[in-house]
Structure formats: structure tokens, C-alpha cells
């Protein structure tokens, strides 16, 4: 439980600091710390993200920072995308998921440095 708290706190901290979603922190921590398989880690992470993003969206909405129509313009295709992405994932070997994730993290790191 304490470790879960630590993951949540770290995800929130990085979210607050960098505006990156918690998923980039949550997934590797679930895999490397908790020994979750890649599929279960990514699936479980989405539950956490749903909670975090909902609260964050409400908070930001109260500040007036949310443009609902633009959000829907992105969000509707995004939902189609996640249906495709989750289906795709089931066909990938788990080590492929881990490598793809490593590539994502590396890309983010490069973007931060330059």
C-alpha cells in the first residue's frame, strides 16, 4: 500500500511539474517495482490516469483553462485510437511493449534536454 502511495505521489509530482501524464511514471513503476506484466501494468495505469485526469480536468475547468470544443475535437478521435491501441497491444509480445515504452521515455528525455 505504501509503495502504491509512492507511485501515486511520484506520478502526481511529475504531472504537476512537467504536465506529463502520470502514465509515463506509473507504468514503469508497476512493472519494475511491483513485478506486474506489461499488459497488466498498462491496463491498471489507465485506471489511475482516469482518476487523476478527471480531478485535474475539473480543477483546470474551474480556472477557466479548458476549451471544451477543442477537447472534443481531439478527444473523439482519441477514443477511436485507444480502442485500436488496446486491441493492437494484445497482439504484441510483452517485451515489445516494454521496448516501445523505453523508446517513448527516451524520446521524452531527448525533448527535455534539447
Amino acid at each position, binding site marked *: 500500500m505504501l509503495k502504491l502511495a509512492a*507511485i*501515486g*505521489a*511520484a*506520478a*502526481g509530482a*511529475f*504531472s*504537476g511539474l*512537467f504536465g506529463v*501524464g502520470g*502514465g509515463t511514471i*506509473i*507504468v*514503469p513503476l508497476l512493472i*519494475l517495482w511491483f*513485478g506486474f*506484466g506489461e499488459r497488466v501494468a*498498462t*491496463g*491498471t*495505469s*489507465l*485506471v*489511475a490516469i*482516469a*482518476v*487523476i*485526469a478527471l480531478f485535474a*480536468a475539473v480543477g*483546470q475547468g474551474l*480556472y477557466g*483553462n*479548458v*476549451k471544451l470544443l477543442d*477537447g472534443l*475535437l*481531439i*478527444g473523439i*478521435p*482519441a*477514443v*477511436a*485510437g*485507444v480502442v485500436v491501441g*488496446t*486491441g*493492437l497491444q494484445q497482439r*504484441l509480445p510483452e*517485451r515489445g511493449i*516494454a521496448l*516501445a*515504452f*523505453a*523508446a*517513448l*521515455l*527516451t524520446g521524452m*528525455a531527448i525533448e*527535455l534536454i534539447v
Partner: protein
Amino acid sequence: MDVVAAIALGFAGGVVGGLLGVGGGILFVPALAIFLGEDQIVAVATSLIAIVPVAVVGAWRQHRFGNVRLSEGLWVGALAPLGVAIGVVVSNGISERALEISFAVLLLFVASQMVRRALRPRPSREA
């Protein structure tokens, strides 16, 4: 054309979200900021409007595939706001460049751990 690009990035962000268990903000924020001309703060805030359904639908799909540990996910989500508070306090005491560099180092370290894991002999433990 910009609208088409934004829609395409929205779709791609969803695919990445479903594939890797992230929210998709990595693509949504640039889509909003660059192609829809939003300010950074508005882009970050508005991307959440896309992230919520992506995460909910994605979690539902993964649940059907048997890939969700519900209570763990809820615990992580519930405790994140504490981390946000810590992050806000910490970020105000450190230079932005120092934050970027340390985060980049952390990301690279985690990436290397993931690669190590991917390359080690199988079978992996299915937790």
C-alpha cells in the same frame, strides 16, 4: 488542414495511450498548442478533456482483456494529488533547467531498466 492534423494527432495519441497505458497528452498537447493555436496552459488543461475518455475507455477495454488490477489502479490514482502538491512546492524551489535535466536523466534510467527487462530471457512473472 490544421484541424485535420489535430484530429490525426488525437487519434495517434489514443493509439499510444491504449498501447502503452499513458494518457496521450504527449500528442494531445502539441496538437492543441501547435495546430489549434492554444496557449500552453490551455493546451495542457484541454488535453485532459481527451485524456479522461481515453483512460476510461482504455481501462474498460483492458479490463475485458483481463489486464486491470482495479484496486491498485484506484489507489495510485487517489494518492496522486498528494504528489501534485509536493511537486508544486518542489518545483518552485528549483531552477527549471535543473528540473528538466534531472527528469531527463530519470527517464533515461527508467528506459534502460525497461530495455534490460525486455531483453532478459523469458518467461516473465505474470503478476
